[in-house]
């Protein structure tokens, strides 16, 4: 989710790379080869490219209490996963990404991508995703 445009003056575009990993099941067998497109968030500047980065994480004790409650009151306990969670989150800041190698626009090779949604690796990705989920629930 991005728009191709020239880089505004005074801004720097951040780089990106591919990360490949193997997904294994509980017994360690490879079940999927994964490729993830990551922003190189370490080049982001605080106050310009991001402001808030705090993302709430479940405390382990909380999980344990939920399990105890499920046992006590005989609740139905289900598990779910949001596919590519961070890619759902909208960005508050304007983030410009260098065009990734192999995907350059032939007419405007020096333009950049202005991101409309978060990307893995961005400093604020976790925060924005948490805000979005929190708002909805």
């Amino acid at each position: 989710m991005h728009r191709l445009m020239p880089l505004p003056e005074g801004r720097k575009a951040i780089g990106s790379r591919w990360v490949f990993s193997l997904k294994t099941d509980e017994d360690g067998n490879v079940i999927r080869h994964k490729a993830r497109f990551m922003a190189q968030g370490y080049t982001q500047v605080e106050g310009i490219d991001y402001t808030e980065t705090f993302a709430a994480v479940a405390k382990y004790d909380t999980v344990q209490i939920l399990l105890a409650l499920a046992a006590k009151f005989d609740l139905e306990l289900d598990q779910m996963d949001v596919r590519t969670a961070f890619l759902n989150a909208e960005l508050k800041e304007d983030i410009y990404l260098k065009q990734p190698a192999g995907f350059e626009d032939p007419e405007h090779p020096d333009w950049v991508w202005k991101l409309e949604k978060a990307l893995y690796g961005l400093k604020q990705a976790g925060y924005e995703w948490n805000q979005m989920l929190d708002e909805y629930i």
Partner: protein
Amino acid sequence: MLAALNSRDYLNGFKVQLKQHFDLTDLGPAKHFLGMHITHNHEKRLLSISQKTYLEKILENAGMSQCNPVGTPMTPGVTLQKVTRPPTADEATAITSIPYCRTIGKLNYAMRTTRPDIAFTISCLSRYMESPGIDHHHQLKHLLRYIHGMMDLTLVFSSMDDGLIGYSDSDYAADRDDSKSTSMYVYQLFGGPISWKAQKQSVVVTSTTEAKYIGLSSAS
């Protein structure tokens, strides 16, 4: 993401709503979560969590899959202290045969999620990560043998049990190097532990009362 509701219909309704907003994969009844294996027996109204696969992998990586089991996490009566002399060549080989820090790090995660029984041992052993000696190596092996013997232990929550119970205790100046005490606590909810810790205190105390008081304070 975990969700618990008191009726199957409500839960399905909740998932339908979430699906309208997000690209959701429904994994059905929770089975594996954060490395834990969850078993929910609705007839007996029991819920248990275990980590057998994870523990087996730790033993395998340490080359201890075939070891003889023991019934205690530490050798009774042994108190550890910092290394006082350099290890002999034989001892040095023995010490490096199991990666001390890495193995304790892995066991620490297991302790945190499903094994309160090894919390105290982990607390003791992790004090010597910087330079483990032959005694520490022997205790780590002892712990791994205990894990091997107690692999099938699970945390069980039951609808028969009521309420919240908290326990707290501490030893008195048991650390040989700095004379500090170790506090321990565990909270149980509906028969199963939900929160536990064993940690060396940060100050030196002058009585068992003081040690236990600090322990109670950190438990609260």
